[in-house]
């Protein structure tokens, strides 16, 4: 049976990168005594799929990974066992069983919501609400993206689904699919150049609030959290 695990990540563990979080979960699942499925052969490994890598330094309230288990004692038991094996800062928020037709976590990602907050000691751009409104009101939002081979001119606008601002924070819901992923920092860079200021990535604490998949039909987008496609067990 495939299950999808939702977890949050806060505190010092924000400095643990994606690959190390994968390693962390492999060991945590063993500590928790979950009857997880392994590949066969000389160095067996767990069948595991992570949704979207989270940048080092970011918090999250909505991370996902899929694993496969041979047996279990129900959803709550699995949540409790895993929470017993976590370090402070990482909390198992939910686990659901996936149907046979559900795509894996990585392939399912369509969008992600992020909150951006200014850290202590850094200046919030003045009139944030208004400026954000102006910035996202533009026809298109052009950025240059540096890839290994070339520099690309890119319009971010079609990938921005929702934007909200308060006096000192921004929330945005953006494309996070493998083909059109928008990194919040890339958008922030464009925002800072729009307001004519230098962007300092250290100024802002980014929290991924949720990761979404698209269950819409006929080209109509309908975003739901990644654990909405599974069931209790």
């Amino acid at each position, binding site marked *: 049976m495939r299950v999808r695990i939702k977890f949050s990540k806060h*505190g*010092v*563990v924000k*400095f*643990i*990168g994606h690959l*190390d979080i994968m*390693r*962390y979960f*492999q*060991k*945590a*699942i*063993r*500590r928790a*005594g979950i009857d997880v499925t*392994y590949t066969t*052969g*000389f*160095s*067996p*490994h767990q069948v595991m799929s992570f949704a979207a890598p989270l940048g*080092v*330094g970011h918090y999250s309230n909505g991370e996902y990974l899929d694993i496969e288990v041979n047996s279990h004692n129900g959803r709550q038991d699995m949540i409790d066992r895993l929470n017993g*094996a976590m*370090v*402070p*800062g990482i909390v198992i928020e939910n686990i659901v069983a996936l149907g046979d037709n559900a795509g894996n976590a990585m392939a399912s990602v369509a969008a992600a919501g992020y909150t951006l*907050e200014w*850290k*202590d000691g850094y200046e919030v751009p003045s009139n944030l609400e208004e400026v954000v409104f102006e910035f996202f009101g533009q026809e298109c939002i052009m950025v240059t993206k540096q890839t290994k081979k070339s520099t690309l001119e890119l319009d971010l606008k079609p990938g921005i689904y929702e934007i909200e601002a308060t006096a000192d924070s921004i929330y945005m819901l953006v494309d996070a699919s493998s083909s059109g992923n928008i990194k919040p920092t890339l958008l922030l860079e464009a925002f800072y150049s729009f307001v004519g200021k230098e962007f300092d*990535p*250290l100024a802002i*604490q980014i929290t991924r609030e949720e990761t979404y998949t698209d269950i819409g039909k006929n080209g109509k987008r309908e975003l739901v959290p990644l654990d909405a496609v599974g069931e209790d067990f």
Partner: protein
Amino acid sequence: MRDYKLALSDEILMQVEKPARYIGNEVNAVNKANDPNVDIRFAMCFPDVYEIGMSHLGIQILYDMFNQWEDVWCERVYSPWVDLDKIMREKNIPLFALESQDPIKDFDFLGITIQYEMCYTNILQVLDLAGIPLRTKSRTWEHPIVVGGGPCVYNPEPIADFFDIFYIGEGETRFRELIDLYKEAKANGDSRESFLRKAAQIPGMYVPGLYEVTYKEDGTIASFEPIFEELPRTIHKEMVTDVSNTYYPMKPVVPFIKVTQDRVVLEIQRGCIRGCRFCQAGQLYRPVRERDVEVLKKYAVEMLKNTGHEEISLSSLSSSDYSQLEELVNFLIDECKATSTNISLPSLRIDAFSLDVMSKVQDVKKSSLTFAPEAGSQRLRNVINKGLTEEVILQGSALAFKGGWSRVKLYFMLGLPTETEEDIRGIAELSNKIASTYFEVVPKEERKGAPVQIVASTSFFIPKPFTPFQWARMNTKEEFIEKAYITRRAVMEQLNQKRIKYNWHEADVSIIEGVLARGDRKLADAIEMIYKKGCIFDSWTEYYKNDVWLESLAECGLDPAFYTTRERSLDEIFPWDFLDCGVTKEFLMREWKKALNEEVSLNCKTQCQGCGANKYGVGICTVDRTAKCEVVTESSNEAEGGN
């Protein structure tokens, strides 16, 4: 917004490579931050980067021991990597412990494990970044008591000035006494000096500041004396007598980032029966003490459960000599199969049993066989007492080739005492014979996949204290390089040269290691100067600065040749002679003479060599040995693969 306590700001952590090295909070890390019972703060340091330090079993053992004690909180600290080192100096950030993130300077003790000579400048880095005066004589109660341990303390003299205490021997036995003495001294308002003077009377404790050395005109030692009458003239090593019934970390700390030793480590025994004459560990940890196999099985299961590690490995100097190996390995194979755990088996003698085991736990096509003949000819192997014969190597290889292996790794040393060009050429010839064996035993139609490959590696021999070769002359850099060339040329002359790959080590750093290994107190000024000129991480090739070492030694009026290539007389007083590691100087001298006569000594299991370690009355020394006549036949069949 920052709701956690870290010594480094987000800005710094986002700027350095692998910030996870500095944030603590790993699985099984011990946090006693709000524990009112904690009275003693102990910082345990491995003076190298986190990934190396976290891979060390000894620290995990002591970390577990200390934290079992209610009144002690033991935390870890490692060398900040060069990027953070620079930032900490610029911004005056004091070195901190991982668990509490508190400055080291406020701790009661700073324990430093000293595993190799080339970490000496990193010891100074740790002290300096912590804000602790480098020299023991400049410290006050404001500073932690700096305690050194580990194999290098069997000649602590080059770094004697930087330590308050050296703990000689295995850490499990005397720390409780030391800590109680410390608490008493603090309660009584005693001076730091008076505490150290009392500490020097606890067995195993060497307080270097309380001993004086005088030198002869030729630079060798004239006398080594304690400055107070009540202090011991000889410091005896501390040793665990019952290794099945002592501290062992059931819940080792599990790092977030990948470290060198990313697995459960099961130490199956301490010590080694073999008595190879170049090997320091083989003498220091005598006598051999085995752990009970049932205890080990329990440890293995428990530790895998508590860490979630996907791999387990056995640790010892020579695993094949463990008497219950077969039972343990069979148990692990079953257990690991059930839990999809990998097993790694280092230092196994190559024979039918080990090949069978290896074929069960690893992919034969991807793995390689390892032999450590150490010398190219039988004559020289007799000199170094390495009981591995060509016949055994070729038989083992043949067996393995038939079993599907096609890669062989061979380890040798260059610069061993009495070595001739013929011995050196033997390295190439042996490699060639192994390749030929492959073509003999594997028929053409079965030679699938990668063709046979022999990788021969040489390191340069460095004489170490407390070995029969402590009297030996070390080679010069030029001699070393010449010998590496001879080896390479000889390899190229072989019939199967295309199948042989030859690697050799840097010579420069071996010379400095040789200086430090048999060094004396005169070296302290040079080490400090070298550190102050910016050298740290000398064991990392990319950071090792040979010119700074050589020029600083010269500036301090020291000649490397005095420590390396000088011929030592049998009656010379060595800097480490005041230590007793269990084996007697008479035994070592007897072995040195036997070496020069190309005579071998049997291992402890077949015949006691009277090394002196039987005074502990434990381990192999207490075991009944086989009758003499059997001894000879048995020993001629013995050989080991790894190690």
